[in-house]
């Protein structure tokens, strides 16, 4: 019994000394700022900053080779925290989130043909320009869903992509992958959008979609500061403040109900899968410390 205790105890002691020495000898010198920055980054490796992972962005920031405001997913909270760690000043920029500029699901838009094959918008777009008659509308096959690192976009039961505005971080991956360029980044504060992407003339649009913008310009006449007309397609001028108040006036005027207020219960379909909540991320700067500064 005693020999066993002594024997194992000696082995443990030797191992502990060896490990302790190895930890010191083979230690990697990491800038402690890099460790701190990495801890406060979202950790989704979404690539929105342009770096392949949060770790590589953290090391680039601490090395001084990357600006501190690239993490669009983390938002202004992360930028502030990084600025605090790096002892730099913060510049503010408006947060952006994605919006799918289309309402043409299978109840509203006509199909060119019945598509069979790979469930991918880019693949379907290769076959005679995609199954939708509208050349600019959402195909609803989910390439954007596949590429989103935050589960912030989903396809409704009627085949239309819709962004979850709470979860979207504006990283831009869905914007890049969409073959129809129907997803755009807009300021997070903008809650009213014209949901159409087609520049075709009104008569043509009517042949393939019940809710497409026909370029009549009534919205622009009603609220000239909020709406811009560009080649038969109206869109919101996002550079204006107080849009919610102004732009809402034109919603009822639009003959095809293209303009939608996202604060008023849109979309009416439930998303296909309910999305789990994001766990809280630790902030380096506590609210008390922020208040004291």
């Amino acid at each position, binding site marked *: 019994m005693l020999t066993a205790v002594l024997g194992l105890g000696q082995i443990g002691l030797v191992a502990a000394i060896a490990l302790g020495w190895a930890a010191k000898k083979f230690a990697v010198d990491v800038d402690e700022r890099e460790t701190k920055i990495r801890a406060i980054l979202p950790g989704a490796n979404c690539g929105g900053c342009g770096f392949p992972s949060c770790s590589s962005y953290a090391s680039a920031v601490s090395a001084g080779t990357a600006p501190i405001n690239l993490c669009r997913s983390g938002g202004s909270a992360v930028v502030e925290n990084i600025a605090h760690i790096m002892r730099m000043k913060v510049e503010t920029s408006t947060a952006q989130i994605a919006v799918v500029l289309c309402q043409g699901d299978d109840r509203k838009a006509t199909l060119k*043909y*019945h*598509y*069979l*094959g*790979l469930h991918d918008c880019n*693949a379907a777009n290769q*076959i*005679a320009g995609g*199954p939708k008659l509208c050349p600019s509308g959402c195909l609803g096959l989910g390439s954007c869903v596949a590429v989103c690192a935050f589960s912030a976009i989903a396809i409704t039961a009627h085949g239309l992509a819709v962004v979850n505005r709470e979860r979207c971080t504006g990283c831009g991956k869905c914007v890049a992958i969409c073959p129809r360029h129907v997803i755009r980044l807009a300021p997070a504060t903008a809650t009213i959008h014209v949901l159409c992407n087609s520049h075709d003339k009104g008569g043509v649009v009517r042949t393939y979609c019940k809710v497409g913008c026909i370029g009549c310009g009534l919205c622009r006449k009603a609220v000239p500061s909020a709406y811009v007309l560009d080649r038969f397609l109206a869109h919101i001028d996002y550079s204006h403040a107080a849009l919610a108040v102004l732009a809402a006036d034109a919603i009822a005027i639009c003959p095809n109900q293209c303009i939608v207020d996202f604060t008023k219960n849109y979309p009416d379909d439930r998303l296909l899968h309910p999305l789990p909540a994001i766990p809280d991320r630790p902030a380096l700067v506590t609210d008390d410390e922020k208040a004291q500064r």
Partner: protein
Amino acid sequence: MGHQLTMSSSPHLHGGDTTARIMRRVIIALLPACGVSIYYFGLPALLVLVWCTLGCLASEALCCYLSKRPLTLADNSAAITGLLLALNLPPSAPWWLCGFGAIIAIGIGKQVFGGLGHNPFNPALVARVVLLISFPVQMTNWTTPTPLGRGIDAVTTATPLGEMKTAIMLTGYLPTPSHDGLTNYFVGNMAGSLGEVSALALLIGGVYLLLKKVITWEIPVSYLATVVIFSGVMWLSDSQSYPDPLFHLVTGGLLLGAFFMATDMVTTPITRKGMIIFGSGCGLITVVIRLFGGYPEGVSFAILLMNAATPLIDRYSRPKVFGYDRHKVSHKEKMAGGREL
């Protein structure tokens, strides 16, 4: 053209064979073995088959519901796992053993990995091994076969492999053979799990699978050939201590393993060369465990170990892509642009 045309990428024609049809053929191939087990072991065998299959179907339905995915029972794979699990259990297995096994097989063996096509290990074998290690007494409670009996008054006995292992461990030599032993082992008149007993029924099923092109010859042939060769070498070196290859072929789960478990497509290599390596590896490990290991039967462990090696085997058994074989490409010595894989 009144209504809409369909458009798709080429090719537009499909052979018509589906996953569900392939699985159905496997079920049909298992029916002789199921029938023979009921013939020899009676009602308990039927109950084991029923509990395992229902348990697997229910587990898969539950997993689909919990992960909010469409129900996948129609592809018949859960039913096959149920049958295979049942065929791996002794006839005396109680209902709760079957149910627990089913949950392990489907829940842990298949669904946590993402469902059909994603599991690295054979689900039925995962369950069998878990049960064997967790409930060794119930899992080794073998009974004597009673042809056409109701199987209620079953007599506990040892399997031929179990007898061999005990005899070797106690005496170092094989037990005295019974002269009609091999014939009995071949038709199924021996103790063992439901699917182990009848070599004849399993061979019928195996040949059916080969004829219907559900499986190809590489794995069963390489598996059985390796067993015969390796066990034959040992038997020739010392026939008192090692049984002959024919004994190995008809006892234990070898035929069940070679035709139905080691040929499970999801967990085995996709290249022909890889399949031969896989089968040979299984054969070698099976014989090593049977002759030198602590357990009397090595098929389950052998197949699971080779399942683990499947990705590696796939990677290193890639066929030579057309146009890279230097000997076939050009009579001239060097040719610009040719690269080995």
